[in-house]
């Protein structure tokens, strides 16, 4: 602290944050929901993000990673002993951690398909179909959406979000909005708008009554501090007595890692123009943004030029999820080996090219379709290398199974 290696604003911020910790130490326990000063900053960020829509700090809980918060909210909604069983509408494709949590809690996934050909859009007809399929069999209580998407890289339009909200109101579903990729938007003319903001714009009575949980994290976006474990949930329009139970549930475990909370603070309250750290911060974040934008361009180019691949335009998120048209012979070979065809492809890719992608099977996909998922937020030279290896492998693979 006494040296001159660190910028003044870094030291001041650190001092302020340490003062917010019990006895000035990151080694102390903090309050159940998180350190109050940090929650305050998170709530200010949310207000700025949503153009002034109010945010109450008591509705925010910081946890070690957003999944933890999601699991807790699901715990409140899901009664594992209920009959019929509790259902949660989940997208196909959907990342697997949420699905694991649902299974662990004894809930049933009620899948709704995203429309790949339209750029992975969320259509109300699909929601309706999913809801109808559950009738009499399961009791759907919540609707889980990921926006921007994972693994598919879509960003919902305002209209789409409005439709989803209206659907949730009609069917009395609690909206779980996983918005962890809100800072990862790069599509042309694409913008992230939060469920909360759209809800607020829809005005009363909806804006005062629709129940919503929004999740965010320091693991994604520009920070990408996955290891430090800092995430939060903001709860909107919940009944106060329900909030009390939510509070006692969150209290059964100590608060989030203090270091994770600190990273959340920095993420939601970054250096501003005029701060000594700002130039370096700007340089680093701009570099990340440009790298990712370049990667996106390259990925779309390459994936759409390779035979037997097609890739929807990437609007946001951290992954590409191209569709793979596997030759029948390859599908046969996979079945003989007792594997899903896209898993077979990924295994061969790993063994022959040393590149690890994950198969669409992990995330769910329409019957008879195959996909692969890979992360696009890598340094540009690594991306080039990946694409090079993939192209060369792919050519060989298609020849082998033609």
């Amino acid at each position: 602290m006494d040296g001159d290696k660190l910028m003044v604003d870094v030291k001041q911020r650190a001092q302020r944050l340490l003062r917010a910790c019990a006895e000035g130490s990151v080694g102390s326990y903090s309050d159940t929901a998180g350190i109050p000063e940090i929650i305050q900053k998170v709530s200010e960020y949310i207000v700025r993000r949503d153009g002034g829509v109010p945010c109450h700090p008591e509705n925010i809980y910081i946890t070690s990673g957003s999944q933890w918060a999601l699991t807790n909210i699901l715990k409140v909604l899901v009664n594992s002993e209920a009959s019929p069983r509790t259902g949660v509408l989940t997208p196909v494709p959907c990342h697997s951690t949420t699905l694991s949590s649902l299974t662990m809690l004894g809930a049933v996934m009620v899948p709704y398909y995203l429309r790949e050909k339209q750029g992975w859009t969320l259509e109300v007809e699909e929601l309706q179909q999913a809801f109808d399929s559950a009738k009499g069999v399961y009791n759907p209580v919540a609707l889980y959406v990921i926006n921007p998407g994972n693994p598919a890289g879509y960003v919902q339009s305002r209209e789409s979000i409005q439709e989803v909200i209206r659907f949730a109101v009609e069917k009395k579903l609690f909206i779980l909005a996983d918005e962890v990729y809100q800072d990862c938007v790069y599509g042309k003319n694409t913008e992230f708008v939060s469920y909360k903001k759209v809800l607020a714009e829809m005005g009363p009575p909806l804006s005062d009554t629709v129940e919503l949980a929004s999740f965010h994290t320091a693991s994604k976006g520009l920070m990408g501090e996955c290891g430090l474990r800092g995430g939060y949930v903001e709860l909107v329009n919940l009944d106060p007595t329900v909030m009390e139970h939510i509070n006692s549930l969150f209290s059964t475990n100590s608060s989030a890692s203090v270091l994770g909370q600190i990273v959340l603070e920095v993420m939601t309250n970054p250096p501003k123009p005029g701060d000594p750290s700002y130039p370096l911060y700007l340089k680093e974040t701009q570099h990340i943004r440009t790298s990712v934008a370049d990667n996106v361009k390259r990925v779309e180019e390459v994936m759409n030029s390779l035979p037997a691949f097609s890739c929807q335009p990437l609007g946001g998120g951290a992954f590409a999820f191209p569709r793979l048209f596997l030759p029948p012979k390859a599908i046969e070979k996979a079945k003989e080996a007792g594997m899903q065809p896209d898993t077979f492809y990924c295994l061969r890719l790993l063994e022959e090219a040393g590149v690890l992608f994950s198969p669409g099977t992990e995330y769910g996909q329409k019957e008879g379709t195959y996909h692969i998922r890979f992360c696009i937020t890598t340094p540009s030279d690594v991306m080039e290398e990946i694409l090079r290896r993939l192209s060369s492998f792919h050519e060989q693979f298609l020849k082998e199974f033609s």
Partner: protein
Amino acid sequence: MTSLQDVNPRVKGIRVSSQSGLQSLAENITRDISLGAQQSFKEVIDISSGDPQGAGMKPISFVRQVLAVCLCPELLKEERLPLDVRLRALRLLEACDGESVGSYTASSGLPHIRQTIAEFIMKRDEAVPAYAKNIFISSGAQRALMVIVKLLSGGEGQLQTGVLIPQPCPHTLLPLLDEAGVMAVPYRLIEENDWAVDLSELDRALTTSRGRCEPRAIYISNPGNPTGHLQNWESIKKVIKFAAAERLLLLVDEVYQDSVYAPNREFISYKKVLFEMDKHLRDTVELVSFHSLSCACVAECGLRAGYMEVVNMDSGVMHFVDTMLCTDINAPVTGQLVLELMLSPPNPSDPSYNTFAHETLLTGATLAQNSQRALKLLNDLPGMSCRPAMGGIYLYPHLDLPSEIREQAEVGKGAMLGLEADVLYCQMLLEEEGLIIGAGQDDGTSGCYHLRLCILIPPDTLEEVLSRLSSFHLRLIDRERNRSVEEDKDENQHAVTSGRNRPKLHLTGQKSKFKF
């Protein structure tokens, strides 16, 4: 619309600890003080739970230096930092993906750290083998315990899973069991015997539980939380035999293993004892041992890391342990790294050793001295008595509640607020002296109460704590004595105090340990 009716009944059933009520009150008091309200105290001191750094204990320099370098790798070149600090940080960074603490790790923890933990265990238990694959790192030991409890939980009614737990037990344990839908089956620890484990109590608890639930595990903390009892070899052996005979999974909370201070006493792990028993037991008794960053000498509660070692567990079940940990993704990397530092500290030949040894010795000495000092004072207070603790970071004195408080709990202020008498005592202590201590886990039926105080705090904070507690307690005792004197004087009159009608008192023949 989610109303109370829709909330998962399991969540509704999670008992709210008295802690949270006291802490909310403390927040209000602190806020009032900052707004200029007059109080006899400047700030609230909270020693109801184990948060040494939160109470002012300093972190270990080596830990913080290495962590700083790991978070900010430019510091690898900082020559003012000792060489061993920088080398250790380098080694730890190399163990992380992309050499960054910001990367995800495997859900069960970084392999390098799991290996270090295994090596620590082998050294501690003098060559009893330990394997990295049997070690699971989690965000705090509670999370690990929750995973195991959830794997055991199931069934309804008579078939509901039950876990034998000590009475008293750590105050976080009961809400955890509630959340998992598991029934707690308490076995009493014997206070007169310094809170020792009693086999006949284990038997009694198990027998009475049959028919009400399916007991599947026994939980025990050693050193005891909050009692401070340290089991000896014989005692551990008996518990292992009991668990083996009754086919109960042993859940051993050994988080205070490095906080033993009774002279000539040493921590012995359950695993070590098990491995010296006959071969059949050694190969079959299932045991899970928990340790934590929060409870050790390093006391880095805010970093959130702990681990469990599973012994003789079916590999198919272990697969599910890992699966459950996947839903948390991984424990904070910074916490995992500090686990490594805690269990593989500097060697005597390392530059950081002297400072490290000095700091840890000081912490150990502070704990021992605080325990002695507090024990004496508590035992000198009329109406309070405390068994000596041998380890851990709490004292758990017995409290003869003044009748004033017992009455208030039944018919006065406490009854209105639904407070147990001991919680009312703690609340009054908070309001009058700005001190939060924990209420024990007594259910009030025996008329027997306890308090819980964390004593791993800076010595001058302890003095302040003891001063506030004595003040308050002696005031209560004085009032008690004056009351009895008054009752003796005018038996036929109702005394009216502060607008309340006090019922007619009879001096009971109850025993109390009044020392004059």
